[in-house]
């Protein structure tokens, strides 16, 4: 069993090393895609164009990018209510995602699921989930299926710090461990369960401590550092793929926007100073500084990623807005199979 690395420090000034330029560029592009998708979605929500709820991922991009860059298309993920970043990083298209946010029939769920249920089976995206912690046992089942069928794909389940207080997390972790399944548990510890700080919902400092209860190795990484996340994820995924069972990664990260929407006004649950401190180590800025410093990419190349992504997003939003709404006559479509 691997020892838990003691690498946690949200203030770590160093960005990790030992990844190749193509990987740095890949991580960067995944993060820019998330950042722009989310900031535009927030803008659309503020403009009153989107129905329902919107749980934005901005600030946590390094986690989704770092993990997903370690996965293949046939590897499966289960996501959370804050799932857009995972979907984007796993390769789900902007068109179907924006269309779903708009409730259009061209959306990823034909307008039946909305933000919290975006999925794409062709990309191994087994869905965002509106129930905290519920995706954990489902990922265990996906991993079970892979082994049953003799495939070497793995399953990754994303969850927040708050989700580790729910039974489904504990049952799923124990089930994966006892069955020795290829599951990677990724805790995105952003410090808050909705509006409650971690200190208000558990007595632990490190969620990773919970892995030990299930005989599962774990590692803590700086969740603002995509390269650090990527290295940990690569190790965990390779380990799982090789049949060594589950592992947990705790990524210490931060949510720039509120639990829901862009800026909540009713409950001042965290200080502006705290937000500013985390933003000073912005994960996208960090990867760009690293890329330029070590020659992985030029500034012009990085800027080109932003430009191309902006264009793609503008086109996708236009596509969504021009797309038809679902026909109420088809309300009962897909309640049952067959």
């Amino acid at each position, binding site marked *: 069993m691997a020892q838990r690395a003691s690498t946690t420090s949200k203030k770590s000034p160093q960005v990790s090393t030992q990844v190749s330029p193509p990987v740095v560029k890949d991580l960067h592009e995944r993060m820019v895609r998330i950042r722009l998708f989310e900031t535009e979605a927030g803008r659309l929500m503020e403009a009153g164009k989107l129905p329902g709820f919107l749980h934005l991922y901005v600030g946590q991009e390094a986690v989704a990018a770092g993990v997903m860059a370690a996965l293949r298309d046939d590897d499966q993920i289960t996501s959370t209510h804050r799932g857009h970043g995972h979907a984007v990083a796993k390769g789900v298209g902007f068109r179907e995602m924006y269309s779903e946010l708009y409730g259009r029939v061209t959306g990823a769920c*034909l307008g039946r*699921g909305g933000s919290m249920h975006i999925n794409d089976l062709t990309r191994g995206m*087994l*869905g965002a989930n509106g*129930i905290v912690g519920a995706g954990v046992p489902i990922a265990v089942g996906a991993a079970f299926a892979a082994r049953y069928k003799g495939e070497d794909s793995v399953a990754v389940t994303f969850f927040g710090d708050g989700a580790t207080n729910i039974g489904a997390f504990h049952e*799923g972790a124990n089930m994966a461990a006892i*069955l020795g399944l290829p599951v990677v548990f990724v805790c995105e510890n952003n410090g808050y369960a909705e509006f409650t700080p971690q200190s208000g919902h558990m007595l632990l400092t490190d969620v990773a401590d919970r892995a030990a209860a299930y005989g599962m190795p774990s590692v803590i990484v700086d969740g603002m550092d995509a390269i650090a996340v990527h290295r940990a994820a690569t190790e965990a995924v390779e380990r799982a793929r090789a049949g060594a069972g589950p592992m947990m990664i705790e990524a210490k990260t931060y949510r720039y926007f509120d639990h829901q929407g862009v800026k909540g006004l009713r409950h001042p649950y965290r200080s502006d100073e705290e937000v500013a401190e985390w933003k000073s180590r912005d994960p996208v800025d960090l990867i760009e500084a690293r890329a330029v410093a070590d020659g992985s990419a030029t500034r012009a190349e990085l800027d080109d990623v932003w430009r191309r992504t902006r264009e793609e997003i503008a086109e996708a939003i236009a596509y969504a807005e021009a797309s038809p709404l679902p026909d109420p006559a088809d309300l009962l479509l897909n*309640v*049952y199979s067959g």
Partner: protein
Amino acid sequence: MTTTTEASAVTPVVATRKLTYVKAFNEGLAQAMREDENVFVAGEDVAGYGGVFRMFDNLLDEFGPRRMIDTPISEAALVGLGVGAAARGLRPVVDLMFMDFIGVCLDQIVNQAAKMKYMFGGALSVPLTITTASGAGLGAAAQHSQSLEAWLAHVPGLKVVMPCDAYTAKGLTVSAIRDDNPVVVMLNKVLLGSAGEVPEEIYGIPLGRAHTARQGSDVTVIALGRMVGEALAAADELSAEGVEIEVIDPRTVQPLDTETMFASVRRTNRVLVVHEAVTFGGLGAEIAAQIQDTVFDYLDAPVLRIGAPFSPVPFSPVLEKAYVPDRARIAQGCRRLLERS
């Protein structure tokens, strides 16, 4: 005995021997596993022990630990395992032992298994079978004796079947496994040892089709699960009094075959609905409402419901016997219906 319903015509197989309810279930499951490599079983003590009700006897010997999986006592993770595996193309059978235990995994059943197809825009199916034992009668008290079909039948996306005898235990189990939706198979604990004629070959019983267990002209009795047998016994008693009741076994309570019920009501003009579950908020209320919506003009009396009183299931045998509806209460209910005109 004049009409043959569509549902009763779907059972062409000729039985050749008797088998107990639990062995019929076991045989159907084993045959479904032989039929489809993607079928596996997971649950507490299902493999090594064969299940606390012997439902899974000998399956480990034939199918091995790859397809018969003993799990921790973790119902949420167990059902979640089934949901994830089903989403990836397998056909899991997960066993919840006692139906009462669904309380600890209702999220995975209701919010995940039942809704995934719809919420995901039809991108996948969840061909999950959940087996469990329901019902009172073993002195198992309030946490091991409930009939919670109304909870599940209320959830769009789920199917729920309630086998009343060995023949339906096998056929409905096979159909549940073959079905592309999450299906809960509610086996009845009291019936486990009861024997009936069961064909040796594999067969399915169509889900969502009621069966007319006995034809009659005076009262329609719609009976769920174990109450079918009680209703048939009541029918014998009433027949001696010159009253012929028609007994309808929905077999599947979600989806519910109301057409067969409506057709019967049009013939008999009187209806009694009987189930083990408490009467309040039970399926009897739904069935009564649908009958009144559609065939009110054919009714010569209000629809009568018989179920359990609004109480947890008691332990002491004398109390438990008073709690669960039986043939005497069904017969009495039919007499009451006939007294009204």
